[in-house]
């Protein structure tokens, strides 16, 4: 926050406090200040008492209140603008829940000068929502980024070039997270020809494991760096375990490629919802590196956290590239990707190479998950949301080429953020996926892929 806007906000706060005092003295209700208000009623129409509502501006809480005896609430706001208003579901009576998970958060409430804006929070009986109603019951709809904390957005009205520079930086950071997660997916495809649909869950496992060690009430409360390293180890173990326990026996049985693909979808559903049972549907964030001063470099602003994510990702990608080019196991991985049978007959232990690739892939995906959780927020389905973008990245770069996956992922991340210059931010992933389909049209082998028969 710049000193000027800080000053403006403080002034506004002081003025508002003054007005509030005046109205207290006068005994009249404040009607001319900006405010959000509403009434919470249960499904039977009775008011719900004692529910906490908070208002946030740019991620900071600016006011909170509880509903009164008649279910009404009002939060006076410091200035006109776009606020996020949240209902704390934990303060609802036990039998009531928000109609959908997304109904507890109103991300964009526009407040005009001097107006009090009404905000609705639909509340339903827990049993209504959770009833075994085929089709819609059970799983809560994914919050789809409504509660995620986005990287700093360019200020409205800033010159176009300035906004361009800022979204490029955001896009590179997003691309860095996608790339580090997608490299393993690409290597696994290269060596085994398996499209691992459960790769997103390896990302989530990394993020959730780090959350457990770092921030969970039941966990040891370690520093994020230590927690992240443990999470990476766990990710590698899970990757290796899946290869030894599931994929290697299946390859031994001669299961077809498409069958393996569908099996990985089943595995993805299974892992994702097991994580949901353990982690819960509420998003969480790490305890370290949350609030950081913004570094300004000309038109670009970024937190040290964002810069660290990019640097770590790029260093790791270079390390993977070096390993592939210079070490014996790297050469073996490339040989197996190139021609499995030839590699096998020249004395390479293919199963060992594949195991190494799985461990590496799991560890890198976990690292990606920790960084994704750090950049945004930890949720049970974060990896699944990233999965399609990873696919877009590796197809864009050329299926099976690790370097292609790196390049393609950065393109996907940058396209996603560039689109926000012209289109709503909620559609950024849709544009990135659209790029995937366009690439399939014009250059199916991808940017770095070899021209071969893909049809």
């Amino acid at each position, binding site marked *: 926050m710049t000193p000027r806007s800080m000053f403006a906000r403080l002034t506004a706060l002081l003025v508002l406090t003054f007005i509030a005092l005046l109205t207290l003295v006068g005994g009249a209700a404040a009607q001319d200040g900006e405010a959000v208000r509403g009434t919470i009623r249960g499904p039977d129409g009775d008011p719900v008492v004692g529910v906490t509502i908070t208002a946030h501006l740019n991620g900071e809480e600016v006011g909170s209140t509880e509903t009164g005896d008649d279910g009404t609430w009002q939060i006076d706001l410091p200035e006109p603008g776009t606020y996020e208003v949240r209902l704390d579901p934990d303060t609802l009576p036990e039998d009531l829940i928000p109609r*959908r998970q*997304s109904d507890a958060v109103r991300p964009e409430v526009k407040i005009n000068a001097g107006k009090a804006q009404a905000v609705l929070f639909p509340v339903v009986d*827990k049993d209504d929502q*959770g009833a*075994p109603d*085929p*089709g*819609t*019951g*059970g*799983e*809560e*709809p*994914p919050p*789809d980024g409504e509660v995620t904390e986005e990287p700093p957005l360019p200020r409205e009205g800033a010159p176009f070039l300035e906004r361009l520079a800022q979204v490029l930086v955001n896009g590179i950071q997003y691309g860095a997270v996608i790339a580090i997660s997608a490299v393993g997916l690409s290597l696994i495809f290269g060596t085994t*020809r398996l*499209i691992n649909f459960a790769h997103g869950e390896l990302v989530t496992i990394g993020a959730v494991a780090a959350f457990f060690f770092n921030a969970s009430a039941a966990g040891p409360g370690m520093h994020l760096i230590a927690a992240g390293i443990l999470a990476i180890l766990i990710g590698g173990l899970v990757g290796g375990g899946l290869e030894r326990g599931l994929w290697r026996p*299946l390859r031994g049985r001669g*299961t*077809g*490629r*498409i*069958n393996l*693909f*569908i*099996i990985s*979808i*089943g*595995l*993805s*559903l*299974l*892992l*994702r*919802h*097991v994580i*949901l*049972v353990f982690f*819960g*549907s509420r998003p969480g964030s790490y305890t370290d590196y949350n609030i950081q001063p913004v570094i300004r470099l000309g038109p670009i602003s970024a937190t040290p956290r964002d810069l660290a994510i990019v640097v770590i990702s790029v260093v790791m990608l270079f390390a993977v590239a070096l390993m592939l080019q210079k070490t014996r196991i790297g050469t073996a991985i490339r040989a197996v990707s190139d021609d499995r049978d030839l590699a096998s007959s020249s004395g390479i232990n293919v199963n060992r190479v594949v195991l190494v690739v799985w461990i590496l892939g799991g560890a890198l995906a976990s690292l990606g998950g920790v960084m994704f959780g750090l950049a945004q927020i930890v949720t049970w389905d974060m990896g699944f949301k990233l999965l*399609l973008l990873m*696919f*877009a990245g590796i*197809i864009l770069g050329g*299926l099976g080429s690790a370097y292609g996956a790196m390049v393609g992922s950065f393109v996907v991340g940058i396209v996603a953020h560039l689109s926000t210059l012209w*289109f*709503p931010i*909620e*559609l950024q*992933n*849709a544009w990135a*996926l*659209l790029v*995937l*389909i366009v690439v*399939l*049209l014009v250059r*199916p082998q991808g940017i770095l892929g070899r021209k071969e028969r*893909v*049809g």
Partner: protein
Amino acid sequence: MDFASILTTALNGAIGPVAAAYALAAIGLNVHFGYTGLLNFGQVGFMLVGAYGVAISVSVFGLPLWVGMLVGVLSAVVLALLLGLPTLRLRSDYLAIATIAAGEILRLFYRSSFAEPVTGGVFGLQRFANDFYDLNPIPPGRYELGPIILSSRDLWVTLFGWGLVLLATLLVYLLIHSPWGRVIRSIREDEFAALSLGKNVYAYKLQSLVLGGVIGSFGGMVLVFNTQSASPDSFDPVVTFFLYTLLVLGGAGRVFGPLLGSVLFWFIVVSLDSTLRQAIGAGYIPSDVLSASEAGAVRFALVGLGLLLLMVYRPQGILGRKEEMVLDAR
């Protein structure tokens, strides 16, 4: 534990309109995956355009219901052409990723605030099927089918849904046993053999994609007629995974596979779900191990496990023939 009520709920789920909608969508998927060997992972996208075709035509533009249904079918045809023209020349795994991406793009666009004036955004559209319920010929009252009690409204949707399922099954049966069906199946077995016999494999694949997509769009319509509400988040990619699970369960590449699969799938899923809830409610499962709201997650996890085990141990499902399900990449 009240086993009678669990059984009744499960039976209700197994013959309900949702099971019919899933059966319809799975019949379409069966044409794609079971008979032509196309790995379409965006079937939910066809359901979405079918459902929204009706919902938007009726509630935004005030058109009659039958025009809306026509719009839904046409949208499915357009989607199939848009999707098929670029991707059907690609290898099957590319097709899978492109179709799942297309389904997700559709959902994201339909739920965005940018499309809200037409699609209703995240809240979707409601109360567009009044014409459908006005057509209900069944006199009001309660109808008992064994332990299941249905209102005339429920009975009408259920009959409509299963009627469509039977029609679609008949259509697929006739088509598959026609010369067209033999070409389609030969593409699944060996695309290059069909090609070298002078068949235009690409055109046949496209026809199959359109046919299955249209049947899928009827599934979407039944789904939203049932609740009178179309919201984008009920067309999540997970729906396609459910369709694959029930199709593989019943037997892919068999005419009655999707029908049997859907009934069994919903029977198993709903009975598991209500058993879990009752066990939690009665305290057999301590609520700090598993709470009632987490029972839904367990259901999804078990569906995933079921799909995994089915594909490993019995990829041909209940009705299928093993030699028809030895799928490999082409």
